[in-house]
């Protein structure tokens, strides 16, 4: 896989991880914030229940006093309703604070005071049957008790103050939690933005690298094309040169051929028998006079030694130690008008005069020419 792609995938992996991390932390913080908000609401609820209890207690007192004055059962009923609601508030407050022993103890103390007040109210109601004065006396006597309205208000006020303090503390916790959530989210966003910038940088870098590679490739292609063009031109020039050379060679060959044919005509036109020899005195070519003289065709004689057709006559009746033809050829000198005997196809011998001309190329003997002329004939046996 491309390195840039791997880096981009790595960046996206990190971004996803940060997103998931932020989401998890944020949800956890939100849950904590919700829990914190629940505690704030809880504290408000305790305060409301206490205030509700005190308020209903006060209303009950008012209705009771009205009942003492009027004796109207509806006022008594209203007082009872107020006391019932007060009990309800206190029961709820007790339940709300049951995991907070200090507050619960104070709620319980307040409930005790309210309970004693309820008992007083019950006595007042009972005394009202005997008349308003009797009820009034019971009521006044009760004001001196510890469960006086002032004492209830004081206990409720203290409890409310403490709950307010708790409320402030819990609100601070909730605020800090909210701040933490905010910071978590913003830091996550910042990290993700940084990672996105990193990805952008990697992509930009990769694109730049690709553009560079593309340019290099284009340059290489251009160079290759130049080289191909140059090479093509060179090949074309070489081809042209070869064509010219071929033409010249053909002309040269034609000239050589012409010369060769001309030479051949010359050789063939000679009435004497002419043998063209190799350096070792093998026959490489003959003219028609040889055929006429010996009866042998050219294909019969070519590559055969000259001595198979012609022999120098030996002087003084003995064979010389050194072959004079070979010796003359080696030394590159002519051997003129030597008496020799040629033998034709039918074995008849003809006296001939033999002349050898060495063929030299740059001072080097490459072969020889032997010319046979008939001598006066001697009768053969």
């Amino acid at each position, binding site marked *: 896989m491309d390195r840039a792609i791997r880096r981009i995938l790595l960046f996206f992996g990190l971004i996803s991880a940060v997103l998931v991390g932020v989401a998890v932390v944020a949800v956890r913080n939100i849950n904590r914030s919700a*829990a914190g*908000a*629940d*505690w704030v*609401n*809880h504290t*408000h*609820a305790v305060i*409301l229940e206490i205030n509700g209890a005190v308020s209903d207690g006060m209303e009950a007192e008012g209705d009771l006093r009205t009942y003492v004055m009027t004796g109207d059962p509806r006022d008594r009923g209203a007082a*009872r*309703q107020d006391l*019932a*609601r007060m*009990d*309800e508030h206190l*029961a*709820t407050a007790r*339940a*709300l604070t*049951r*995991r907070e022993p200090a507050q619960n103890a104070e709620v319980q103390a307040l409930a005790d005071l309210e309970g004693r007040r309820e008992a007083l109210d019950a006595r007042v109601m009972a005394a009202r049957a005997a008349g308003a004065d009797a009820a009034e006396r019971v009521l006044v006597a009760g004001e001196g008790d510890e469960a006086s309205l002032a004492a209830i208000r004081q206990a409720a006020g203290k409890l409310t103050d403490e709950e307010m303090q708790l409320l402030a503390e819990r609100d601070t916790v909730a605020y800090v939690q909210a701040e933490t959530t905010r910071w978590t989210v913003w830091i996550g966003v910042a990290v993700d933005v940084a990672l996105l910038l990193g990805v952008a940088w990697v992509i930009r870098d990769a694109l730049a690298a690709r553009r560079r590679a593309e340019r290099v490739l284009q340059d290489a292609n251009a160079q290759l094309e130049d080289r191909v063009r140059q090479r093509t031109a060179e090949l074309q020039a070489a081809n042209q040169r070869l064509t010219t050379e071929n033409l010249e060679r053909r002309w040269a060959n034609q000239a050589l051929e012409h010369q060769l044919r001309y030479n051949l005509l010359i050789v063939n036109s000679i009435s004497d028998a002419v043998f063209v020899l190799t350096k070792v005195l093998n026959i490489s070519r003959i003219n028609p006079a040889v055929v006429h003289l010996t009866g042998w065709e050219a294909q019969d004689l070519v590559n055969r030694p000259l001595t198979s057709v012609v022999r120098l006559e030996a002087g003084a009746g003995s064979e010389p130690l050194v072959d004079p033809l070979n010796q003359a050829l080696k030394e590159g000198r002519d051997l003129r008008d030597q008496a020799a005997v040629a033998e034709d196809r039918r074995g008849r011998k003809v006296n001939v005069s033999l002349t050898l001309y060495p063929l030299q190329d740059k001072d080097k003997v490459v072969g020889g020419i032997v010319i046979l002329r008939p001598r006066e004939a001697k009768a053969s046996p």
Partner: protein
Amino acid sequence: MLSPMSRWSHTTGFRILGISGILAVLALGRLEGLTVADLLADAKLNPHRFANHFGDFDYEYADGVQPGDIFLSRRKGDCDDYAILADYVLTRHGFATRLIHVNLVGRTAHDICDVAQAKGYLDYNLRSYFRNVQGSGRTLREIADKVADSFDANWTSVSVYTYSYDEDVKHLTVTVVKTDPPSEDADRAPGR
């Protein structure tokens, strides 16, 4: 003096008026004359059928609880009037009910009547809906969550209470506080 035609017309008109009047009286009598005794006498009464009687009742908040017949004749009341009447009637029809008081954040509170057999509760705010029995979990916490959701609010505590029209006093029996660990809720059996 009226012509025969006029006499016929008047007679027919009176008949129509009379029949209409009787039907109107019957209809009104059926609707406005609904009493607690009628509800108790209805052998087919169930939570859904009970709630159907209150579809067009109005809402009116009051501190106290209205006696059942007054609530039915006035055709207006609040959540505890409805919940307490439902509890009173359905209990007598053999349903296992609970009166539940949910304290929402602020001074708001809401009363409902939970019916075990219906696996849901009767809520005065939902009386006019087709689904007038709201399905819910069986724990107080679940019920409080559902009730608070319907107000888009948080709850702080939820209590079960008893009430009798004679005494006219609510007695809280069990209270669950939201901030308490759910495992310690009073209405949860150990190991549940």
